[in-house]
């Protein structure tokens, strides 16, 4: 049963039990489900907070009169391994989350700007992966035959790759190619390479789901009817099939974002990501590892933030799926 169909059944049921009878679109029904879901509210609140902090990040340096990259030697104890002076990693009114050991950079600012880096890389990669995934899934499902054979094998090959390992291997290669072409090895090269790698390995998941949906839709009566009326392929794909796919796409996207955030952090953690002095949560985690005994706050902050954000996105994704697919169990 397609979602379109399920929604119709629900509508029929609602028609029977509720009076006066008002027609509601599938979107309206999903929205009403989502609104009554408390998990969805809490998780979207956190997602919103993180996005908001990322957007307004440039305000904080003005409030705190420093920048995320500025060193603060006065906050460090040179005779104690250059650890922050004061308890909890040097938390103070000036440095809300404390300072980094050995550099004295403000952790709050690096956290906030790190949210920007991590989220924008993940979001851009999501958009790219979705566009590629949906187009290839549509083509593969709609045309079938040889096109489907080739595209499906391609998806399987990519899915079979150990993506993190492959990304680690290919990132320096891509970088050196671009660097040799004249670009200096900085974040200007590294960020696009990361986005490219993450979206390259991300699109087949969407494409497979879309393909499956398209295959079940393309033989349906309304498509037959449109075809009989002489509709072009373009019309069939974009006007008849695509509007029926937004639900699965939305769910996949919602669940892809947290995956991509962790992939980005993992890549940076493993050394294939952004470089100094750009703030990034993966980079913060990596830098904090040596100090986990001495200054646990430093590890805790980016780790906990990453945990909350990924959890929030995952729960939100689940809620969206529940709302769109009433048959999935709670």
């Amino acid at each position, binding site marked *: 049963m397609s979602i379109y169909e399920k929604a119709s059944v629900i509508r029929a049921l609602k028609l029977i039990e509720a009076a006066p009878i008002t027609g509601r679109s599938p979107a309206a029904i999903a929205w009403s489900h989502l609104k009554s879901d408390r998990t969805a509210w809490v998780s979207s609140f956190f997602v919103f907070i993180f996005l908001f902090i990322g957007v307004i990040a440039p305000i904080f340096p003005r409030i705190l009169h420093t920048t995320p990259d500025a060193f603060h030697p006065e906050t460090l104890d040179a005779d104690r*391994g250059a650890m922050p002076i004061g308890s909890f990693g040097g938390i103070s009114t000036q440095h809300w989350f404390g300072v980094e050991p050995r550099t004295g950079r403000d952790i709050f600012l690096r956290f906030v700007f790190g949210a920007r880096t991590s989220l924008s890389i993940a979001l851009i990669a999501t958009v790219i992966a979705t566009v590629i995934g949906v187009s290839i899934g549509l083509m593969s499902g709609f045309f079938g035959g040889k096109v489907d054979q080739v595209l499906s094998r391609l998806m399987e090959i990519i899915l079979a790759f150990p993506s993190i390992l492959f990304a680690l291997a290919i990132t320096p290669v891509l970088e050196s190619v671009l660097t040799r072409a004249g670009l200096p090895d900085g974040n200007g090269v590294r960020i696009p390479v990361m986005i490219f790698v993450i979206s390259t390995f991300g699109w087949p998941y969407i494409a497979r789901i879309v393909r499956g949906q398209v295959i079940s839709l393309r033989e349906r009566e309304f498509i037959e009817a449109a075809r009989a009326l002489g509709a072009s392929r373009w019309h069939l794909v974009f006007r008849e099939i695509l509007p029926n796919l937004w639900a699965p796409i939305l769910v996949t996207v919602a669940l892809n974002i947290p995956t991509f955030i962790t992939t980005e952090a993992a890549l940076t953690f493993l050394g294939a990501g952004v470089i*100094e002095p750009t703030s990034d949560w993966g980079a913060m985690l990596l830098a904090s590892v040596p100090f986990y005994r001495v200054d646990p706050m430093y590890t805790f902050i980016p780790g906990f933030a990453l945990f909350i954000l990924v959890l929030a996105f995952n729960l939100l994704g689940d809620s969206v799926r529940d709302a769109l697919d009433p048959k999935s169990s709670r």
Partner: protein
Amino acid sequence: MSLRNKFLASVGALALGATAMSMAPIAQAATPASWSGPAPAVKGAVTGGTLTILNQGDFEHIDPARNYVGGTLDFYRFFIRTLTQYRTINGKTELVPDVAADLGTTKDNGKTWTFKLRANLKYEDGSKITCQDLKYGTMRSYNDDILDGGTTYAKDFLQNETGFKGPYTDPTGDLTSITCSPKGDAITYKLAYAVPYFAYVTTFGSFSPVPKAKDTKQNYDLRPVSSGPYKIESYNRGKNMTLIRNKNWDPKSDPLRWNYPDKIVVKFGYEQNALENMLFSDSGEAKRAMSLDTQMVTNLAEAMTYSPIFKDRLYAFDSPYARYLAINMDTVKDVNVRKAIQCAVNLETVLLAAGGTYAGAYSNSLIPTSLKNAYRNFNVCGRDVHKSPEGQTDAAKALLAKSPNAKKDLILAYRDKGTEPARAAAVQQALLAAGFKVTMMKLDRAGYYTRIGQRDVGVVQPDVIQTSWGFDWAAASGIVPALLDGRTMSPTDSHSNYSRQNEPSMQSLFEKADMITDALKSDKALGDLEQKIIVDFAGIVPMYIEASTFMTGSKLGGVQADGGYGTLSPLAAFVRK
């Protein structure tokens, strides 16, 4: 000259070179009594037990002709004797004869060197060590196409009129510049030019005896014939090595080696953090263990904070590494810009990023203060860096204002290892504050020194290079010519002259310094040259001289910082019951 650091860096090993040792003029007087064995007993030493050494990686090479790594050069003395060697007793390191009986004599100001040899030295199989074996040991180092990885000093310094290419390539050839006395009790080296510090050079493995009949070429690396107090019982590459006593070694013939443990077991394949934590928490086999290649890095702060608790097993000492920035004079041509960089760099944030006062001491020079004759306490950017290490941002801006059209976009190259990224970020911030634009160029650990030395037009040239140098022997001649002499450069490779110094006016001064045969005068002349180069041409920003911190298990004694190789030495170690 020496490319040693490239090699060291590529294997991630420790520095080697003397630290606390000052270069005494090589004695040509009568033989001091301390040169004969045995080495003085270590206080509280116990004989017996098993000494365990836990390492991250296997030794690069233990073939004496190929070994060029600090920790291994220190360690392999358990089974390799060389012509001369360093001896460390109670924190004092000095050069002593090893296979030789004296530190060499020269009649022509250092161009020809004759060493008397000790009589009755034996290999592990009981056969005698001969002068011919010493000569053969040097000759085989000429086959560095097969025996790669070692020092090139023998090839660099010895005369080679017949064009000898090594005994494997040239089985009938002879290296005529090495001759043995008719009785075989003395060996003479004829050098291509005067080398006053030659007795330091002969501490390297290419001056150790190798019996020709037992030479297995590449495989000698797995099982060199022992001439020291221990011999190899088993060696599984990448896994472990076991040393047992060599009964044919006579302690009376050896002034610098001890043999307290019955057995020495070396294990490889630990991960930095895990190994460090084992040693730190003094648990299990780590109680009787030490590491040659693992310093306290992540536990440094805790170890230092509670140092009284760890004082019996914590070893903090100066390493021979000078950390500095090389400004690429090929690309940064304006001297005012280079001086502005010198002024802008904030040594305080750099040293903090390295770990604070325990990581090292500020330095105005590439020469450590321990080399008293060579070190000059000059000002960099008009200030004493020891007293005011902070960046001189205003002075830098003023210098930049003098050259408004000069290049201000800099590419900063650094290695992706340890604290180096954080230090590079500190440099970047300081340069930004002075008005530069800085692009970061993170480079891989492997091949870093090759990459930053490349002068090819095809590769992106970094403008500022974060690098370091540990000297091969404790004299200015082990530092200044290698790093600052333009004559060492080729059009495609700067070798170790990373700042691409090529001032014609300096070259004649270097030529003059080459002619000085007196060690003291050579140190003074090169010290003056270094000061002139750093102050006038500003291609170098010295930052700090590094310190090392090691930890051992609580049951070990006799372990000491070795001034000869700048590392922690197990040579005098014993295992408490």
